[in-house]
């Protein structure tokens, strides 16, 4: 009978239950997504050149666990405020406390485990969707990653089962121990926290100090290494908390003191609503800010690597295609690409010398990319004169030649002298195209054709001349990082939106009352809507801004990796 009663209770509040359930499903889904990477050692080790990546994922697991735990804590208290009145009423009607405790235990646990199972499935689905999306959109190659990962499934389910077991126990105890009257009145609004101005100021200072230390550690990450990461993690979490707990309240307080701002339309109400909200939401907003930082950080790193592929490819070669014995390629062969420049240098050779027509280089100088002292790729052009006198310059030319040619000496002759040489001329063709990305496939075909027509070319060595092959090499190298970045970024963003939406939706009931009150005293509907929009906008914006700031400092960590990749992936140069 009681079970039936409690089930009808659920039916009546279906909307609230949907909010609760979908919130929990998202939490476990995202947790699974993260773990599907974090527990996949083969993937992590195969796709990163830094050993610390496994460690970073361990830290990430800890952080995400804390966030999930707080999320579930909120969800649970939402569940309790929904249900304790009903249960207290059953008790008033004579139901035994033990029975009620059992019921609420079962309810919490079943809702939790149900959500976890659905969430894990959702996580698997999301993982594979995101994986396919990324592979298609970014044209990256992924190895050792599968959406279905047994250890992640097991870890997710165990983690959530333990948390819900605890929550169920706590709920059951609360129901039995609290006096019935308190349970019945539980949903009444709490008193506004009356905080002393001095404490507020101290907390504001503490917040700024914590953030300062955290950001300093991020900047110093190259010197302090692991210690900086741990210290930054702790201080930035504390700092974020204080920003919401105090700094923001302080700012709202100042705004409220300005008549021209506060006493206009519903501003005073909106500000107060925010101020109350933020005190109530401190933890969730801190979480959201952290999640936003993580998401943005991950996506920026992903994007960084994505751009790095093209940047590094560009740095290796001034031409998009190099054809040896270019006379063997017909005009129709080159039709597939949209060439913007097509320089032909004629070569004649004997046993120990390759001869070039100096005038051809004067007309179209040979372009190369050279690395400066600061490791920037610099464009250089060499005329025939320079090639004849500069050994480094002529080495650049040599690197484009066939292996049997590059062992010989160079001679740059006048056009007449070159024409007078008895042997027949071959061609070295260097081509650039309008849009490398668009012509990638065609370039690849032509590059392979060049290898086929010139069997003496060493595939390993000469690949570096063909931009498209260099691109593929870097793409394979960086794709793992890129994938991790985007995958986690998307996961964290979803979690963040879900967190905030959950909290806002679960508080909607008391809001509706306030808005209807305002409407009764003659507030225009568009003003009410404006107030709601402002409030929700700020609730998303502030953690967003803080998240961005975190990322700006946090990226120092990856800066070394991104701006100077040659050091790490070097050796080739």
């Amino acid at each position, binding site marked *: 009978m009681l079970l039936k009663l409690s089930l009808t209770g659920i039916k009546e509040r279906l909307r609230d239950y949907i909010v609760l359930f979908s919130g929990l499903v998202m939490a476990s889904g995202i947790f699974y997504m993260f773990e599907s990477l974090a527990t996949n050692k083969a993937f992590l080790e195969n796709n990163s050149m830094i050993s610390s990546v496994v460690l970073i994922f361990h830290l990430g697991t800890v952080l995400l666990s804390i966030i999930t735990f707080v999320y579930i804590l909120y969800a649970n208290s939402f569940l309790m405020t929904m249900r304790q009145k009903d249960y207290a009423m059953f008790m008033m009607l004579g139901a035994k406390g033990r029975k009620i405790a059992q019921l609420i235990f079962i309810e919490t646990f079943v809702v939790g485990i149900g959500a976890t199972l659905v969430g894990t499935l959702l996580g698997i689905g999301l993982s594979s969707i995101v994986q396919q999306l990324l592979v298609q959109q970014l044209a990256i190659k992924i190895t050792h990653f599968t959406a279905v990962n047994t250890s992640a499934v097991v870890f997710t389910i165990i983690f959530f089962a333990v948390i819900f077991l605890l929550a169920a126990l706590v709920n059951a105890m609360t129901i039995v121990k609290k006096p019935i009257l308190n349970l019945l009145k539980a949903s009444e*609004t*709490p*008193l*506004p926290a009356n905080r002393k101005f001095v404490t507020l100021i101290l907390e504001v200072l503490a917040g700024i100090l914590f953030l300062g230390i955290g950001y300093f550690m991020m900047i110093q990450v190259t010197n302090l290494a692991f210690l900086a990461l741990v210290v930054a993690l702790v201080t930035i979490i504390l700092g974020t908390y204080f920003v919401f707990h105090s700094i923001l309240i302080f700012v709202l307080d100042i705004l409220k003191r300005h*008549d*021209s701002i*506060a*006493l*206009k*339309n*519903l*501003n*005073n*109400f909106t500000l*107060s*609503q925010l*101020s*109350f909200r933020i005190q109530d939401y401190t933890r969730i907003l801190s979480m959201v800010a952290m999640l936003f930082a993580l998401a943005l950080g991950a996506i920026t790193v992903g994007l960084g690597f994505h751009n790095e592929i093209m940047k590094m490819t560009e740095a290796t070669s001034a031409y998009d295609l190099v054809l040896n014995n270019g006379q063997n390629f017909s005009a129709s062969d080159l039709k597939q690409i949209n060439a913007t420049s097509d320089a032909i240098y004629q070569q004649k050779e004997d046993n120990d010398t390759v001869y070039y027509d100096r005038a051809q280089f004067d007309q179209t100088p040979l372009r190369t990319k050279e690395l400066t002292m600061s490791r920037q790729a610099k464009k250089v052009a060499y005329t025939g004169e320079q090639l004849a006198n500069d050994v480094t310059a002529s080495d650049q030319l040599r690197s484009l030649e066939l292996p049997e040619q590059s062992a010989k000496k160079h001679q740059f002759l006048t056009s007449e002298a070159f024409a007078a040489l008895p042997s027949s001329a071959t061609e070295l063709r260097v081509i650039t195209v309008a849009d490398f990305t668009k012509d990638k496939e065609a370039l690849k075909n032509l590059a392979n054709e060049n290898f086929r027509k010139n069997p003496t070319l060493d595939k390993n060595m000469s690949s570096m001349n063909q931009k498209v092959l260099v691109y593929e090499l870097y793409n394979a190298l960086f794709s793992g990082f890129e994938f991790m970045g985007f995958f986690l970024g998307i996961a964290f963003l979803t979690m963040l939106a879900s967190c905030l939406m959950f909290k806002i939706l679960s508080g909607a009931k008391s809001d509706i009352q*306030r808005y209807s*009150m*305002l*409407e*009764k*005293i*003659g*507030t*225009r*509907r*568009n*003003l009410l809507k404006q107030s709601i929009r402002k409030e929700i906008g700020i609730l998303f914006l502030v953690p967003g801004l803080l998240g961005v700031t975190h990322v700006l400092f946090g990226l120092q960590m990856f800066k070394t990796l991104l701006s100077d990749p040659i050091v790490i992936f070097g050796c080739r140069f």
Partner: protein
Amino acid sequence: MEKIVTVNEVKKTYGKGNQKQTQALKGISFEVEKGEFVGIMGASGSGKSTLLNLLATLDKPTDGKIRINQADVTKLSGNKLADFRSREIGFIFQDFNLLENLTAAENIAVPLSLQGVKGKDIHRRVAEVAKRLSIDSILNSYPAQISGGQKQRVAAARALITQPTILLGDEPTGALDSNSARDLLDTMEELNQKDQVSILLVTHDPFSASYCQRILFIKDGVIYQEVKRENQTREAFYRQILSILGNLEQ
């Protein structure tokens, strides 16, 4: 005398087409003149809450007309209706309906900021009305920190600050202890007599009703009887109300 409220043959039926129809008001007509203190009494289900919602422009009648300060409120909607409500009608509810995240002063100021009154004037007018209702000492407290009687005074101050055409009270003493109730009613009577504030009070409490000058008794959706206090003492009027209520429930 100037008529500020005219209710003409107002009917209200609940329930849409295919549902069961309930006629809450079956044709009610009455008038309120400027400076009057009118009570509307009736048992639960008599239709008095429906009538109040119509007067408050929170709901529209199925048939009939309601004019407040010359305007036909049944024809207003959207922003015009909201503006009308904020300008012409002051509300006091049984459960106060204060915004618990604003201080007393901020609560009182809300209608003025909605009307775009300047900050300086808002402060002055809040101070005035607070003094009038003896709540100047609690202006910076939040609703949760003050007593029920004080909350209702704050609500009254919020209702009066726009100097509305009419003050509507929906069981304003319903949630108050007897001393606070008496204080509030004394204040309302004083506002009515000294400041010519027109008041319409819906109640089922004979003691509250005895402060009115005229009472309309509603039964089953129609006006059953109308009585005037005239020169009677409040005690005598109170006894008269009790005896009418006795008859009403027979």
